[in-house]
């Protein structure tokens, strides 16, 4: 809440400063720039403003209104009420960066729990306090690997099955630099992950893949990790953290760096954000990892306490030598994930993952059974997302699906021209069997109408 100064307080302050009016404080600004005209409408009352925002919001159809089968990196999952309840506590909601441990134990403790949960989930040794989102986490993985080898290995080999936005982010970061970003078989999703090795040489610092990949496919990367290590490079895996409730942990496959988009863990879709970047690595590389790190220590009375640690890595301490310009985290979203994971626990998370898995497999079976539709990668195991070949362009199908109250899956032709008529279908615990059956009926009807 904003509590302005009273006129008396203002008068007193102006007197101490030695000016007559507030306007006198701006005398250094050239007169013609002092009070620029801004073409704003007259001020609204709170009631009018609320009304206007509400009508803007009402113009959108959301996942509350329609059944959704859209994923591609952001998924409709259930957010337990407790998450919001804890997030909105003023102590968390308005907390600033915990630079002063003596007044920030709550925040620091929460972040420490987040880091610990990330390590438990991914099978890695250290985690940072979070990053902006999954895409920038991938870019930071490329950065970190570069610095592990002190610039002597300037090449990063990235899978073409990484999320297109993660790849685009990596390009944004490094295209203007002298780093080499190589994406073998770009645009071709049929390439086998092992084929990435062809591009790996002694100038490669990192090979990075996604798990499940952008098309929903699940691979065990253990063998690839070994082969990459044999060539002296680091191995990174970008994961869906919810899938880890069911699948083999990336740390167990031999990953050196694990990143994730944490949105599936108790964070609503919102309007594409805020989401949550997750970043974990091995202890021996901790000093090359960007981002904040919370550590556990004891205070002068021997009580357990938490502090920001290893801060000499960061740009506010040692700017010219920092390995990244990241020196912040996404504390509130990390807290959401922490509450979510703490609430569900290992068993609960597994149950959610299983629901996702089984519903998606039921949907795949129903949809592949429709005439004109088939699975694009029938051999590949998947978690809660799969690629479906369709008889019509996906954009057309999705338009028609709106009439049935359904948001269809992602149109892959947007990013992969060779994947015309391929839809990426996501199914979560939020999709009921009835919704899945309705989707099947709708897709069937749409295909038949088009054929007639």
């Amino acid at each position, binding site marked *: 809440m904003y509590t302005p100064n009273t006129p008396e307080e203002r008068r007193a302050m102006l007197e101490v400063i030695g000016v007559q009016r507030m306007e006198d404080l701006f005398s250094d600004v050239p007169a013609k720039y002092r009070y620029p005209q801004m073409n704003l409408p007259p001020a609204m009352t709170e009631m009018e403003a609320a009304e206007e925002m509400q009508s803007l919001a009402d113009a959108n159809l959301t996942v509350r209104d329609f059944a959704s089968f859209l994923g591609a990196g952001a998924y409709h999952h259930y957010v337990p009420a407790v998450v919001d309840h804890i997030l909105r506590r003023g102590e968390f909601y308005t907390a600033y960066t915990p630079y002063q441990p003596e007044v920030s134990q709550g925040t620091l403790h929460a972040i420490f729990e987040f880091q610990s949960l990330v390590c438990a989930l991914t099978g890695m040794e250290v985690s940072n306090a979070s990053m902006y989102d999954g895409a920038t986490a991938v870019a930071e993985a490329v950065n970190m690997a570069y610095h592990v080898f002190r610039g002597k290995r300037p090449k990063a080999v990235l899978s073409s099955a990484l999320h297109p936005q993660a790849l685009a982010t990596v390009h944004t970061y490094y295209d203007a630099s002298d780093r080499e970003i190589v994406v073998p078989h770009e645009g071709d999703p049929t390439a086998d992950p092992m084929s990435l090795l062809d591009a790996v040489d002694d100038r490669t610092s990192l090979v990075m893949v996604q798990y499940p990949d952008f098309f929903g496919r699940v691979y065990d990367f253990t063998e690839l990790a070994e082969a990459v290590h044999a060539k002296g490079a680091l191995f990174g895996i970008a994961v869906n953290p919810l899938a880890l409730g069911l699948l083999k942990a990336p740390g167990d496959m031999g990953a050196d760096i694990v990143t994730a988009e944490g949105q599936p863990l108790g964070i609503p879709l919102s309007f594409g954000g805020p989401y949550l970047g997750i970043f974990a690595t091995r202890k021996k590389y901790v*000093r090359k990892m960007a981002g904040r790190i919370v550590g556990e220590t004891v205070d002068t009375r021997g009580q357990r306490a938490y502090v920001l640690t290893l801060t*000499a*890595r960061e740009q506010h*301490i040692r700017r010219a*030598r920092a390995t990244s310009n990241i020196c912040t985290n996404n504390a509130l979203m990390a807290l959401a994930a922490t509450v979510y994971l703490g609430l569900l626990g290992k068993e609960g998370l597994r149950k959610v993952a299983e629901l996702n898995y089984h519903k998606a497999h039921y949907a795949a079976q129903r949809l592949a059974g429709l005439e004109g539709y088939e699975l694009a990668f029938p051999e590949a195991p998947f978690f809660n997302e799969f690629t479906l070949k369709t008889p019509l362009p996906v954009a057309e199908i999705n338009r028609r699906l709106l009439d049935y109250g359904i948001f269809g899956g992602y149109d892959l032709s947007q990013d992969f021209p060779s994947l015309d008529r391929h839809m990426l279908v996501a199914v979560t615990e939020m999709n009921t069997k009835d919704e899945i059956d309705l989707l099947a009926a709708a897709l069937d009807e749409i295909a038949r109408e088009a054929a007639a």
Partner: protein
Amino acid sequence: MSWKVPPHLKYTKNDEWINPEDGTVGITDYAQAQLSDVVYVEITVSEGEEVQKGDIVATVESVKAAADVYAPVSGTVVATNDELADTPEVVNSDPYGDAWMVRLEIADPAELDELMDAEAYAKYCEEREH
């Protein structure tokens, strides 16, 4: 305050020492006192690498700060003290002995003349404390 300043060594304005006989390089007692508890040392050059005077050869991180260690003269790196990464506290306890960081094959001995001797360095430290 007085700091150890072994007479047989040469010193830089950045508080590095070099042994003119064998080319060993480290940071001084004054430096470790300023840094306070050292928690990490990273040698950033490898054996066989050529360095110019002023190139960074190591990074020292303490609870208070992180500092770079520069080559006092040009030369080739013939050895690095890889044990320091595991026992960084040695920089505080034995800065001229076990805390040596790299050993250089000195390219041009004349560059040593540009450095301070023990007496000049001791004076330099005194001046900074006032």
